[in-house]
């Protein structure tokens, strides 16, 4: 049986240097964005989702685990950060820390439950858990139900960077994204990442080699959730609100879609996928509900004919690892 990611290219020789070049190009492009006249808020939002998709990809692309509830990390971290900033008046760095830690804690709790089943069941369990959390957030007073937490002060990061200035905010978000991205890259190429890949390819064999595969999977899940939460915390500064949409299952579906479009199990795929999907939402919004239909069609087309995704296809064509 094939595994979920068809991008499992056996370690190419030049893999690392290719990725380095791609990384430099991506960073350079992102650095000059404010000079190009592209609307910065669009890019900021796309960056948050790109990090989110990368975190999700760590789990499915390298751990082979499909989480259909990753929005719960996004939303939880968002609510925690928003509450810390608005109600407790915390500084931005503390707010981000609280949001990310909240997501990490959620990762530990839900991970211990979800990791007990494999494959399809894992997907259904994560979906059910996120729905459970959705109802909890709907009823808990601190989230303000359908109104959401609004008008969140952006404040000064480390007391110096004024986050209400779009240009400052942009570079702070970019820095956060790069930090998370490099962390994920590092994790994938560490011994830990190698074990994960081994589990994905052949779990019984990994077990027979003496690896406690459940612990590795749990760790990957927590790491993924924490980074997804980090993305959620950053997003609070861009959107200045935290709402139920971020916990809803449609959001989880969008995260899956971004990664699928870009390429499951590729390093840069989720970033590309996030930009594609967010751009689609922004520029196709005139199509109204057809956006949902288009998203569905992309799912279907990707699964039927385009399983490697954009970056996966490119990498496959050039026989590189991206």
């Amino acid at each position, binding site marked *: 049986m*094939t595994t979920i990611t068809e991008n499992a290219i056996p370690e190419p020789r030049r893999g690392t240097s290719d990725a380095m070049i791609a990384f430099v190009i991506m960073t350079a492009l992102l650095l000059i964005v404010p000079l190009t006249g592209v609307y910065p808020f669009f890019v900021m939002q796309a960056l948050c989702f790109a990090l989110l998709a990368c975190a999700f990809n760590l789990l499915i692309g390298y751990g082979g685990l499909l989480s259909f509830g990753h929005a719960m990390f996004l939303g939880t971290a968002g609510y925690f950060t928003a509450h810390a900033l608005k109600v407790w008046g915390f500084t931005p760095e503390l707010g981000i820390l609280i949001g990310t830690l909240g997501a990490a804690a959620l990762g530990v709790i839900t991970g211990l439950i979800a990791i007990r*089943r494999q494959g399809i069941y894992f997907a259904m369990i994560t979906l059910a*858990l996120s729905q459970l959390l959705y109802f909890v957030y709907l009823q808990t007073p601190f989230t303000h139900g359908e109104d959401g937490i609004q008008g969140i002060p952006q404040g000064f990061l480390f007391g110096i960077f004024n986050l209400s200035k779009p240009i400052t905010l942009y570079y702070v978000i970019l820095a956060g994204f790069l930090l998370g991205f490099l962390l994920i890259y590092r994790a994938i190429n560490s011994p830990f990442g190698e074990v994960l890949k081994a589990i994905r390819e052949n779990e019984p064999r990994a077990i027979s080699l003496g690896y406690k595969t459940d612990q590795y999977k749990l760790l990957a899940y927590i790491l993924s959730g924490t980074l997804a939460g980090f993305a959620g915390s950053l997003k609070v500064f861009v959107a200045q609100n935290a709402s139920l949409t971020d916990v809803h299952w449609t959001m989880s579906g969008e995260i899956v879609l971004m990664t699928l479009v870009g390429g499951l199990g590729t390093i840069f795929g989720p970033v590309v996928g996030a930009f594609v999907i967010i751009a689609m939402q922004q520029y196709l919004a005139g199509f109204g509900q*057809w*956006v949902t*239909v288009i998203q569905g069609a992309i799912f279907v087309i990707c*699964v039927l004919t385009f399983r490697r995704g954009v970056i996966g296809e490119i990498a496959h064509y050039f026989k590189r690892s991206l």
Partner: protein
Amino acid sequence: MSINLQALFAQLLVGLINGSFYALLSLGLAVIFGMLNIINFAHGALYMMGAFAAYFLLNVLNIGYWPALIVAPLAVGIFGMILERTMLKWISGLDHLYGLLLTFGMALIIQGVFQNYFGSSGLPYAIPDLLKGGMNLGFMFLPIYRGWVVIFSLIVCILTWYLIERTRLGANLRAATENPTLVRAFGINVPRMITLTYGLGVGLAALAGVLSAPINQVRPLMGADLIIVVFAVVVIGGMGSIMGSIITGFALGIVEGLTKYFYPEASNTVVFVLMVLVLLIKPSGLTGRAA
């Protein structure tokens, strides 16, 4: 806390009704999973199509509730078989998760198209005259339509179980799940069987849709949240056994009904909480076989 027996029985009955929907839907999921090895995320959307089919039969073709009970599931079932032939067929042999993603995409398309044409607020569908009103049973008030839903779904569930577990057709089907190559050697057309099975599972979902049309507003998103609850039901019961999914469906409906009586605030979440508990105690689900 004093217990009001009448209210308690009423809640139990309501629970049974939701249980019938859970049972019909999770049964359909189990049937499909058994044969195609995919989790059908489009199940909620097809359930919705069943309700819409009933609406159109009545308002366009002037075909009432009773014929709709047969015609709507057939029509939606055929639609399902077309989906299987044109799409699902191409991903057999791939990782199960692709099936989940593909059917999720299908669900988005179906729901989106219906939303575009019919808006979100939905359409009305009246209870058939014969089943209007209610009976006073002394200890409780029984709305006739609800009683009918419970009994009818129970019968359909048991018939489906019988079909799969006790007939020759079912035996072939089960054999094909275990060893398709061998069954093919006996001259049985396995791909056709797969298509028919998917049609059967989809038909069950559509039937649930027809049954729910008179109670709930016929809305494009009526199945979207329901399917997530049904997933939790499936995780609790396990998809290994047909009878298991039927019993779990009804049982969880009752538990939900009891929650509505004792602590209504939690009735949205009780199924999910139970799922967590079951996973902690018996990870492979109540009816056993691990995935």
